[in-house]
């Protein structure tokens, strides 16, 4: 009496098992086709850049490429440092202490990309003597913090270390 039931259950089991295996196989086939568009080994291999900073004069900055993006390395003057440190956190759109954004106060290392829509801001421009983005008018101060304009947050600080007094490793 329970025979047809049993048969039906077995059939259901086979269906479910086949569909499951089929779905896993399909997923395993599709994944390489998706993953191939992710950064490849040759791109990942370029994830660190070493920079010689011995030639940079106070008040000057250089721009280097790291992972295809511009990184600003600025040697700040004493007045720029004190200006950055003296700002009250309440005045900031994205409150961050200058001390938290640098390893040595003299050196500001940050991604030179406006956090609004990705343009590269111009240095020593704008109302705060820091950076000014020509695309949509964002003003950054001498610590790279957003002060005025549409950008939502401060310019990003990449991972970096001082290998010695004259060399920075970014990434």
């Amino acid at each position, binding site marked *: 009496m329970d025979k047809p039931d049993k048969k039906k259950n077995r059939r259901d089991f086979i269906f479910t098992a086949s569909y499951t295996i089929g779905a896993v196989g399909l997923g395993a086939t599709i*994944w*390489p*086709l998706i*993953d*191939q*568009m*992710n950064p*490849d*080994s*040759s*791109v990942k291999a370029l994830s660190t850049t070493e920079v010689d900073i011995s030639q940079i004069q106070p008040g000057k900055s250089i721009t280097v490429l790291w992972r295809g993006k511009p990184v600003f390395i600025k040697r700040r003057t004493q007045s720029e440092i004190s200006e950055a440190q003296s700002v009250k956190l309440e005045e900031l759109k994205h409150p961050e202490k200058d001390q938290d954004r640098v390893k040595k106060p003299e050196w500001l290392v940050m991604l030179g990309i406006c956090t609004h829509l990705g343009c590269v801001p111009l240095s020593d421009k704008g109302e705060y003597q820091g950076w000014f983005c020509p695309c949509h008018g964002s003003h950054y101060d001498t610590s790279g913090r957003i002060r005025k304009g549409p950008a939502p947050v401060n310019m990003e600080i990449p991972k970096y270390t001082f290998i010695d007094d004259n060399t920075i490793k970014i990434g």
Partner: protein
Amino acid sequence: MSDHYTPSSKFGKWFNDRLPLLSLSAHLREYPTPRNLNYWWTFGGILTFCLMSQIITGVVLGMHYVAHADMAFNSIEHIMRDVNYGWLIRYIHSNGASMFFLAVYIHIFRSLFYGSYKSPREIIWILGMLIYLLMMATAFMGYVLPWGQMSFWGATVITNLFSAVPLVGESITEWLWGGYAVDNPTLTRFFSLHYLLPFLILGLVVLHIWALHVPGNNNPVGIDIKKPSSDTVPFHPYITIKDLFALLVFLIIFSGFVFFAPNILGHSDNYIQANPLVTPKHIVPEWYLLPFYAILRSVPDKLGGVILLFASIFILMALPWLDSSKVRSAIFRPIYKQFFWLLMVDVLVLGYMGAMPAEGTYLLIARVATAYYFIHFIVILPILSKFEKTESLPLSISDPVLTGRTDRSDV
């Protein structure tokens, strides 16, 4: 039938009245298929899979490949070493070409055995031959893209075929090259065309299937059947599940090549960057072009070899008229059946000779095999179709089953 198909939902009906996709899908599901189709009939589905697989992996490879004489070779190595799963995608694409040809040869020989090229299916056959021709052109240009030694010298030899044309030969080859030898302009145009042709093939495949759906499938017994009737089954689920099973078996073999012997069908010389100053000792095309290569080399005259090479392909298009026998399936043609196998052996022999150096006994055998290839089509088939005494055909597909006839034992 699907012509009278009405969608059940109101929206379905509204949509279908404007774009009858649902009718098409119903037609494909219900499409009456002869109930006696054997596994040789599953290669149409397998070939559709091969084409899609080649297009998808090819589009992906195109994202990483650089079509420039100085960078192409390195970009292939970049794909093999750096790109995530690049090795897998490239091996699927390169072995996929071989699997595509393996399937298409089985598909063609199935047609030859069961007379699928005969009336009323001549257009299907001719479209199929055009697809085959485009496949060869596409595969050849794809083989040039890695810019290895075999790529370069294969391209040189094949494009030089056109220099055999009297008077304008040299202008044609220079036009093909975009210069005075195979070089960067040749590579970039081959890349462009290699990307284009598969989509032309896809278009022809749609016509091929459309033309097939007018008379319906031929079948192992080769007789006309009433559709739908007790001789047919709906395409879905009967044929879909059978095609799927055959495809899975095919994929096991395919994966065997991709994962365990990905370079066994290739030539090691192609891992050496193209060098216009040094020709490799042995220039050998890919295995699927070897029979034609043997025909080309068996003629001692440049122009003659080229003419025979093209004739060997175009003669196939005339096949429906060369073989005028009313009986389709070789099952009921005892003499044709022998010649079918002889032709198959002949083509295999030609393939083997194409891989051997063109000298001594090899050359002699290649010449005999080439002659036989043409004799089969031009002499044997027309005579045979007039004088062969065929066996009596069953009235329907169910007939030989129900009457217990045994002459289907060799199907």
